[in-house]
């Protein structure tokens, strides 16, 4: 017997823009959704749970993460209740629920908290530079480049990187574990044989690397051809952006000594080629998504939560300052390089600290984990049958 809590709708409303009271349970969203099948009435089940405030059910659901927001449910909803945006809001809500520190909920529901945290972390970086930065050497290297490693030695920054990466891993792992706990361990309907975690593991890697789930979007739609085209453009650009920032993350956290050098490598050097690939990916992606959101050209771009803008703006500034650091360094502008480098880190650090474990960027982990978990569950159910 489950008790209901209709006041939950007011809480959820802070996480997105949708009209929960408009829903009259017709089920059109569910008939159009490619994720829905006879065992799983998606998104209807989630909508109803939201209307009734059945938070246990929402907390233990993986479904919101399986949805890549093709927006068909919203365009076909006869009541303009915007179920697609409700799913988006549930993802924001779930991100907040997985986070045990409670910071995520604060960032999602209070602009003040979000902005405050960014400024605080940026100031922290500034203070660290004031305290620990090397001298601003204006002499140039033999190649005419700026001696960046004198001002901010890669070895030292690398240590800071590791500390940051460790804390990101700490928070994110904790959150993913909470996701696992609620969606798998507490689900009494299915017992997972241990070996399935290994046999299904390739799905995590596969979906993480390819974002294949996108291809399901728009499956049930009549004018599929056109939609498919749109979906694949989105998919390619998203993949470009995603591989770009993952690559950068790997280079910064794992190989900073190799990535941040005073030596100016020839243009074909992997350090430069990889860097250019990554920054192009980020730029193209950011421009594409920003234009989409400004023009509201697709269902998923119609509403932009302030946390979405924060993410886009921070990532954009990070990319821009990163490129500037590179240009100033190889053209031999010492002060410009040093100041921009400080700014670069002042943006980069809050972006990673806030977005990766507590906000938008966490979906990088939650989505593939959700697909992995749900496949593990499906496999376990098959065995049971």
């Amino acid at each position, binding site marked *: 017997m489950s008790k209901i809590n209709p006041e939950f709708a007011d809480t959820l409303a802070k996480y997105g823009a949708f009209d929960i009271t408009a829903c*009259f349970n017709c089920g059109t969203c569910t008939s159009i959704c490619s994720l829905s099948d006879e065992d799983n009435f998606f998104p209807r089940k989630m909508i109803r749970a939201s209307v009734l405030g059945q938070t246990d059910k929402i907390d233990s659901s993986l479904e919101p993460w399986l949805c890549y927001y093709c927006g068909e449910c919203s365009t076909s909803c006869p009541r303009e209740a915007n179920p697609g945006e409700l799913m988006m809001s549930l993802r924001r809500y779930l991100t907040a629920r997985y986070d045990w520190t409670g910071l995520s909920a604060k960032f999602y529901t209070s602009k003040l908290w979000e902005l405050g945290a960014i400024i605080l972390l940026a100031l922290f970086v500034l203070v660290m530079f004031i305290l620990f930065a090397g001298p601003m050497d204006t002499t140039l290297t033999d190649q005419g480049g700026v001696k960046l490693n004198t001002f901010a030695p890669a070895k030292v920054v690398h240590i800071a990187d590791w500390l940051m990466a460790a804390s990101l891993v700490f928070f994110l792992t904790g959150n993913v574990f909470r996701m696992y706990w609620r969606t798998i361990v507490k689900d009494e309907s299915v017992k997972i044989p241990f070996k399935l975690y290994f046999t299904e593991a390739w799905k995590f890697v596969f979906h993480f690397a390819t974002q294949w789930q996108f291809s399901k979007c728009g499956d049930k739609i009549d004018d599929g051809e056109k939609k498919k085209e749109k979906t694949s453009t989105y998919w390619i650009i998203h993949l470009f952006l995603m591989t770009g920032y993952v690559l950068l993350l790997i280079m910064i956290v794992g190989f900073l000594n190799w990535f941040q050098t005073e030596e100016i490598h020839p243009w074909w050097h992997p350090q430069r080629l990889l860097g250019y690939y990554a920054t192009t990916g980020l730029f193209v992606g950011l421009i594409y998504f920003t234009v989409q959101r400004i023009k509201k050209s697709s269902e998923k771009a119609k509403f932009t939560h302030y946390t979405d803008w924060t993410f886009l703006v921070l990532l954009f500034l990070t990319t821009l300052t990163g490129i500037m650091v590179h240009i100033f360094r190889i053209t031999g502008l010492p002060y410009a390089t040093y100041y921009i480098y400080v700014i670069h880190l002042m943006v980069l650090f809050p972006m990673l600290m806030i977005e990766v474990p507590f906000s938008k960027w966490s979906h990088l982990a939650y989505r593939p984990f959700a697909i992995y978990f749900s496949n593990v569950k499906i496999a376990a159910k098959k065995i049971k049958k």
Partner: protein
Amino acid sequence: MKQKIGVYICQCGSNISDYVDVDKVLDSVKDLEGVSLVKITMFSCSDSTQNEMVDDIKNEDLDGLVVASCSPKLHLPTFRNVAIRGGLNPYNYVQVNIREQGSWAHSDNPKKATEKAIQLVKAGIERTKYSNALEKTVIPSEKAVAVIGAGIAGMKAAIELADMGLSVYLIEKDFFVGGRITQWEDLCTVEELASDTVTRLYDEVKSKDNLTLFLGATAENMSGSVGNFKLTINIRPRYIKSDFNKDKIEELTGKCKTLTPNEFDFGLTKRKIVFKTYPGALPDIPVVDIKNAGDDINIINEFKDHLDLDRKDESITVDIGSVILATGSDPYTPKVGELGYKEIDNVVTFQEFKRIIELSPNGKLKYNGKDIKSVGYIYCVGSCQAEGNMYCSRFCCTCAISTSLSINKRFEKIRFYHVYKHIRTYGKQEVLYDQAGRQGDIFFKFDEDEEPVVSMVDGEGTITFNDLLTDGEEISVSPDLIVLVTGMVPRDDYKRVAEVFKAPIGRDKFFNEAHPKLRPVETVIDGIMIAGASQGPKSISESTKSALSAASKADALLHKGEIELEPTLAMIDTSLCEGSGLCIQACPFNAITMIDAGGKKLAQVEKSACKGCGWCLAVCPHDAIELAGYTNNEMEGMIESLITV
């Protein structure tokens, strides 16, 4: 005996001729005795064929007419008119049905269909031969109508009849007018108060010279037949003079101590024994409830000069031509324990809820002194039952939802839970359902085989059910007030009323109309009309519509001052009648009486009451009764020809 009969065999396009060999039918009957003309027609009902028949009757001097075509339900009146236009008596026309009973029924066997058609036509010809010319009976009628019940339907009908110039007797059982709607006060879907509506109608009722209102009055007995009924009315005393001294009565009311549950508020409040049901009740004269006076009887006696204590029940008889039954309905009363009713404190019916709203102070909805912040409706209580009241009460969904909207304008935010079987805010009210959803009301749907359960859970009245909208999951809600959305049932005294007026009762126990589509406000008893919720659950606007139709039907019946009766009535051959009286027992319409004709007891048919059903014919041991239009000669002739191949 008719000797010059015209027979027309219709092809009905090809509806008949595809399966019945009409030429063969023609050949089989053309040489029969008495037949002077046989024709095959494409469409007998077409204008040109009708004109041809009229000409034939005149030119050939026909004395009988047979059309073998479709069901008489469809075209009997058409061809009777043809007969009249040709100068024939319409009762010398006989319709033979060779379509519904011939070609359509036996499309798999054209040969047999043709044989059957031949036999039927032959029988029709035989009947025509022995048919008699009959004339409609005309009786004078009273230009007066009794309307039973002064609720909204009754008052509306009475006012309308008075406007049409008929004398009207409006008879109300209660001492105040308005009926059920006064208990609602805040009317649904319109922003109007019932007390205003009733005041307007009451003022109109009082303004009509030809309208007499009887309060505290019940119809006791009725005799006679359509156009000429005698209705006996019993009037109970109010015990307060109509020219009463207001101050004195107020003083009396103040001194009275005894309290009884106020029926008007379903016992939610108590009233004194000198009372008005609610402050605005009309007429503005209190009633003395002597029966429940208790110790207050002494106080009443103190004031006897201002009261009418000697008054007894009074009986009067009025002559009327027609009756409109507008007795309304009762709310369904759940059984004790049905969905927690009368067992769990915060379970009430919807009608009680409407009173709770009216009795709540401004800005705060209160019940039993407690603030109500959430309300759970359970729908279809006493309606749409698998067994019992199978009908839908029609008004409840709309009114319950309308109330959830209006209440939120009147009080602080109240959350509504709608636990429903079906939601039927039909017609223009569909928009209410939408509005309720948008105001944040939450809807749950239960399967009709799994009724919700109301029980105490952790000290709170709780509704538990399997919600079909949540994949059949078991859900429970514990609102501050649980409202059983109860439907309509007939008034508790419907049987008594039905007995007085011989009104037919349907399976649902409401009064039954003669035909749901074609005669929606008439009953099979001529002159007895039904209006409003006495016929079945209705909204106020549906009630007034039916009241207006009933009024116009009554006027159509009576305004000429005479009534035409079908001549197909029972006729008693006094030479054969032995006065057995069996026919009197058999007659369902009390149309036969026994008279004394010079020492001999003879049965006599009251023409205006006889419906020509034929029951008396079958029971008469002396074969002394014949039914005009269905005489023994006609019937025997038909049977003879049907069994002769």
